[in-house]
Every structure is written in C-alpha cells, then in structure tokens.
C-alpha cells in the first residue's frame, strides 16, 4: 500500500490538547548518553583535501548570512547583501550564500539589494526573539513581513505554552502563521536552549513539523546555549522519523554559535551520516550565522594556496 505524503497522517483526527499530548507521548525518546557518544564519534571524522573543499563550498551555499541587531542600518544590510551575493569580491568561484536574514524593517532594503541574484531574503517575525505576544499580533506581523517582500519567514515557538504542556496553543499558532506565509518557506525556531531536555527537543520538533513547518531551526541566537551538534543530531533524527512516517521532507537549520569552518564541517558530517544526500543541499539545510562565512573563506584560501591570509583580506559584512 502506498500513500501520498501528508503531514496529517501522524496527527489525530480531532486536534485537541489531549490528543496532541498523546501524539507527542508516542514519538519516542532520546538517550542523552548515546547521543553525546555518537556526536563525539562523528567529531573524529577527518575531512581533508577535495572533500574539505566540497564541504566548505557547500557550507557557503547553505548559509543564511545574518544580522539581527538593534543598530542595523540600511547601509549595513546592503553591505551584507553584497557579501552574500559575492563573498570574495572578484572571485566568481565562490558561490553566493543561500539567503540574508534580517529584521522586518530592513526587508525592503535587503530585497532590493539581492533582487535578481538568487539570494533570498529571510526575515525573523513573531515578535522575535521572545515571541511574547498573542497569536493574532504575531500573525499580523507575519502578514506585514510577507507584504514587505521576504522570501522566507523564521518564527519562534511559544516556549511558555510548550513547557506548560499547552501543545494546542503552539500547534495552532504555527498553523496560522504557516497560513499567513502562503507559499513562503516557514522556519520554526524551537529555541532549544530554553527547552528542558532532548526529549522536549524531539517533541517540539515533531509538533513543529506536524503543524506545517518547512524547516525546524535550533535557536534565535539570542539565548545561550544556541545550536549544539547534539541538539542538531536529535532534530535530524526527528526529521528522519517524520519523513518515514509521513513522506514529507522537512529542512534543518542550526543557528547561533557556529563560528568556525571546522564546526561547520562537523555539522555537515552529522547531516551526511544521518539523512544523507537528499538533505545535503541549501534547499534542505541552512546555517544561521554571522561570523562563520569569513572563517570558511579563509579555509578555502588555505586549501588554494597553502597559506592563511590575514583576516584583513576578507571583507566585513
């Protein structure tokens, strides 16, 4: 028997808090000790030469080059966009990043700057980073951001509701925001640094995927810890189980705290050995990062020349 892909296939017929609780009770658990052991084992993968170059170029293509500061200006965003389009001025062998990620106010500036280049504009919404407002206001914000010309929306879940067990509130909010996004890609931030356990991360991942998230994302970057490799492995395994159960492919975005090329390669190793080729593209995996790009570029230059260039040779975004 073959079924068409459908997120509903894992959901109860009647969505209530009780039925969602029982759905999440059945998604299985995570063992912390073995998760850490697996991540430590994969960290010993030794990635050299051509496989390292391939990984670094892939990491550039997967990057959501991000600036999320109160002091961001149109000038800074235009600079960021230029860096995203052509990471090393005058070197067309270095690909563009996947997207730039900015606050709503700066979406029109970013959209104009990247127009026609293939680089997408992602914007955080839903009263990022805390999400401390009602669902109607969040939906209204998302509708506004969509009208400003964003291609992708990064929302945060209501952690308060999740932690007190009001799964229906979290689920319903994600659904309404996905409706407001229309065809735009919705990334759902779980803010794993505020969730209590890997079991919670797994449940939140399943809830976000069942509710309609196109991507699940670790963190806002405003809470510590942000992305970790362990949390990422837990989420990738949830994505695998969700794909097996529903046929629906969901993407992954670790964000926050990923600063070095070595880090990025370790994430890609985990991805490669957990979900494989089908996810190894910017369509299904993103890095949310601001300072990672230059370290990756520096490593690519090192592979090219055998020398480390002075950081001043790499432009600030």
């Amino acid at each position, binding site marked *: *028997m*073959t*079924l*068409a*892909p*459908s997120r509903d*296939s894992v959901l109860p017929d009647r969505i209530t808090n009780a039925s969602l609780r029982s759905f999440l009770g059945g998604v*299985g*658990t*995570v*063992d912390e*000790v*073995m*998760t850490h*052991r*697996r991540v430590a084992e994969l960290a*010993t*993968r*030794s*990635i*050299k*030469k*051509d*496989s*390292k170059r*391939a*990984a670094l170029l*892939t990491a550039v293509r997967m990057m959501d080059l991000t600036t999320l500061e109160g002091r961001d200006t149109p000038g800074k965003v235009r600079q960021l966009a230029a860096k995203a389009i052509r990471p090393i001025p005058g070197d067309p062998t270095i690909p563009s990043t996947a997207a730039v990620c900015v606050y709503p106010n700066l979406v029109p500036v970013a959209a104009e700057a990247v127009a026609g280049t293939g680089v997408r504009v992602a914007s955080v919404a839903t009263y990022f980073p805390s999400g401390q407002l009602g669902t109607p206001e969040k939906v209204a914000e998302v509708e506004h951001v969509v009208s400003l010309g964003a291609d992708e929306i990064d929302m945060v879940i209501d952690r308060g509701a999740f932690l007190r067990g009001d799964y229906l509130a979290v689920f319903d909010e994600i659904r309404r925001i996905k409706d407001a996004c229309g065809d735009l890609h919705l990334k759902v931030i779980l803010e794993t640094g505020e969730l209590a356990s890997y079991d919670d991360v797994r449940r939140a991942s399943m809830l976000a995927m069942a509710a309609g998230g196109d991507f699940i994302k670790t963190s806002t970057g405003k809470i510590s810890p942000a992305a970790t490799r362990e949390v990422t492995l837990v989420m990738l*395994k949830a994505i*695998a189980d969700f*794909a*097996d*159960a*529903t*046929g*629906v*492919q969901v993407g992954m975005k670790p964000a926050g705290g990923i600063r070095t090329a070595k880090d990025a390669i370790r994430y*890609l190793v985990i*991805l*490669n*050995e957990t*979900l*494989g*080729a*089908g996810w*190894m593209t910017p369509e299904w995996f993103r890095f949310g990062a601001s300072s990672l790009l230059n370290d990756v570029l520096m490593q690519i230059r090192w592979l090219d020349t055998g020398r480390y260039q002075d950081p001043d040779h790499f432009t600030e975004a």
Partner: protein
Amino acid sequence: MQDTSKVTDTTPAKTTGATIDLPGDWRYAPSRQSSAPVTIADRYGLFINGGWQRPASGEWFPTINPSTEETLSEIAVADGADVGRAVKAARNAYEEVWGPMSGTERAKYLFRIARMIQERAREIAVLETMDGGKPIRESRDFDIPQAAAHFFYHAGWADKLEYAFPGIDPKPLGVAAQVIPWNFPFLMLAWKIAPALATGNTVVLKPAETTSLTALFFASICDEAGLPPGVVNLVTGAGETGAGLVSHPDVDKVAFTGSTAVGKRIQADLAGTSKKLTLELGGKGAHIVFDDAALDDAVEGVVNGIFFNQGHVCCAGSRLLVQETIHDRFVDKLKRRLATLRVGDPLDKNTDVGAINSRAQLDKITDLVESGVADGAEIFQPRCDLPERGFWFVPTLFTDVSQSHRIAQEEIFGPVLSILTFRDPEEAVTKANNTPYGLSAGVWTQKGSRILWMADRLDAGVVWANTFNQFDPASPFGGYKESGFGREGGRHGLLAYMDTGI
C-alpha cells in the same frame, strides 16, 4: 560471500516522497595516519630477565599486516627451555626484588610505565593497527588510552592493598603465567600485567601469535622505565608455547583470556595443582531492545556492540533480541545505519570497520555465515567496496534467526549480528540466558524498574543499560558459566592476584 544490498521492504505501508538514502554522496578523501613514527625491527627475540634473547629453538615465524598480507617482522618461537628460563627469571625477581619491595616503590614503576604509554600512545596505536587490523580510530581513542588508564589505576592500589580488604593482610602469589588473545593485544596485556605487578607478583606473558608487536614494544617500555630484570618477561609463539607456560610447575598463578575450548583444556591441565586460575573466555552477548527504548540510540549501541573491532570482542552483543512490536522498524533503522559504516584501510582515520585479524578467523566467520544462510536465516549486507588484498568481511545482519541456528549459538567473533524477537520480558530473559556463555548483555528500555528486573535475571558478568561497551579500570569484568571465572579490574580484580588467606 554474499553481497545482497537489497533492503527488504518490511514496513506495512510506505509513503511516497522523502527518502533517506545512505550513505550520503559526499565522499571523504582518504585521511591516512602516517606509519612513519613507527620502527619495526626485522626480527624480535624473547624478552627474558630484562634483556633480548635468541630462542633456544632458533626458530622464528612471520607476523603479517592483515590488511595487506605483508610481513611486518619475524617473531621468535619460544620452546620449553625458553619458558623455563623466563619462569626462573620471574621467580628470582619475585624473591629478590619485586616481592620484598614496598608498595610505594612498586607504584612508582607503574606510574612511570603509565606515563610512558601516554607519551608513546601514537606509536603504539599505529603499531597495534598495523599488526592486528583494527581501525586507528579505535586503537587511538580506546585501546591505548584504556591501557594507560589500567596502569594508572593499579599504580594507585599498589601501596593501599591492606585497605582494599579490611582485616586481611593480602600477600602476592608469586609468578603469574599470562596468556592473552589477539583482539585487544595491548589492552589485554595491560589488564593482565598492571594488577599482577601492583599486587607484587612477577609475570611471564605470552601474547597471541598474530599480534605480538605491541607486547614487544611494551618490553622496551619496561626496559626504559628501569623495571628490575625479570619482573616482566615475554615469551612469543603459538599455542604450544602457551601450553608449556601454563603447565610449568614453578608457576603460581595462571590467567588466560581466549577461547572457551582452550580455557577448558587449561583448567583440566591445572586440576590437582595449587595454581590459582582465572579464565576470561568466549561470549554470545544479547542486546534486549524493548519497544519503549530510545530506538535511534539503541541502534547506535547495537552497532557499536557488534561492529566495534570487527566483532572480535568477547563481550560483543552478537545476538539482538528485539521486541516483536518494533522489529520491522528497528531492523530498517539498523540497515540504514549499516550503510554508513566505512570498511577498509585500518590506518584511515575515517575507517569504522577494519580488517579481520587473520585468514583463519576469516574462514571461521565465512563458515558460520554460510551455515546461517543454509539454516534459512535471511542475510543482509550493505553494498561495500573491499580492498583486494587482506582479510575483510562485510558487516552482516541475519533476520529470521531461530534459537537453534548455529549463528544464534556459536561465538562468531566477527561482524555478524543475529536478530531474534521476543514478546515479553520473561521470554527475553529465557532466550538471552539460553547459551552456554554468560559474559555480557545490554538492556534497552526507558523503564528503570525493568532494567533492574532484567539485570537480576540475566546470567551475564556485565549488564549494560541503555549503553554498551563502556569500560573503566575501576569496574570489574568477567564471566558466568562457560565465559569463565574471576574478575579483572576494580577491587575484585586484585583478588585474582592475591592470597587473602581465606
């Protein structure tokens, strides 16, 4: 050897859409650990009374690299005369130097040896991998650090033995004859030598025929550490050398790790003597996976339990008992994970499964796998490119295995997992215990009370819960039933080398 890469579709309803296709198409470039720091002599003599000696027989045998079949060196064959000289040297050292020495002084030597192992860890790891075929990742991250940890741990006991067993004044036994296997050559040497020396005994050790090189390297460490002559002696050779050693009349203690068949012969041979004996023999460990377990993590544990060191592990979890309700899902997950195992050059830092230790072992594995197919079990092997030379075996799963199949009963000592199902905890315990062996078991469930219930009923020297293959020098290790007796490691391990007067 069969190479059936087809995954049998066992799930009742598959959806179209996203599929997980492993291994990914990002290939890691070879990342080979250099063997340059290692120097291997053309020929090794016997290490007796602190010096290198020619074998009385004048005979030598080659030791090869099982991943290339190239000869690495020639090793002396010790005969009865050599064994006699080694035991005599150990006896003298025991009576004149090591026995009378204070625990504090013995500890200094052990600490020194532990530090020297750490300092030269990379050399030892490379040598271990070249001579035995295990992945460098394992020799570097597991075998050698654990060996150093055993010397550190026992160094700590050397001057505290009177506190280990309050009210008892324990005494050393004398000369210990130790025979070790080829699966963890350097680590088993540490498990044997560290407690023997800490408790004041002297040692004659025989490494396995196919893996003598790291033991010979250890001899040079003893020499550089200034260990008094005769405290540690090494005799190399095959089974005959070992038989001569354990039956030597002037030996006080015999410690053997290896096959159950040989262990039985040694026990028979020692009957009626005053020699103290400990045996660490074969196993057919069971993983028991309940339907409430963290499945992906259980998959990791099961994979580690059987493919670690190519399955050449006495406590390997070589049988998987999986609760019937999750069988299909769990097997699918296992197959997917198997596809990511990297089999090949043991010196490549990314290799997960290295070479089979010897042609003889490869033949044994092949024979048992053929019996599994003939008995009607269903075989699964991922697609795998194996090197042309050397001894290799593709990681293998068997489903539809019955308790009466040879692959469910006999120790395969290779990368082969037999999968059975159970319905309730009682049946799981019955099946797990239905083997002559009793070395290890793994229980996978989120329910704490069930872990305790199972651990009480499983006849196994070690029961791991929600993990597998975790070792620590402070934790005793040993078997039930035909897996042997006596413990190694921890306070219990000291008893094997001490006369407590009880």
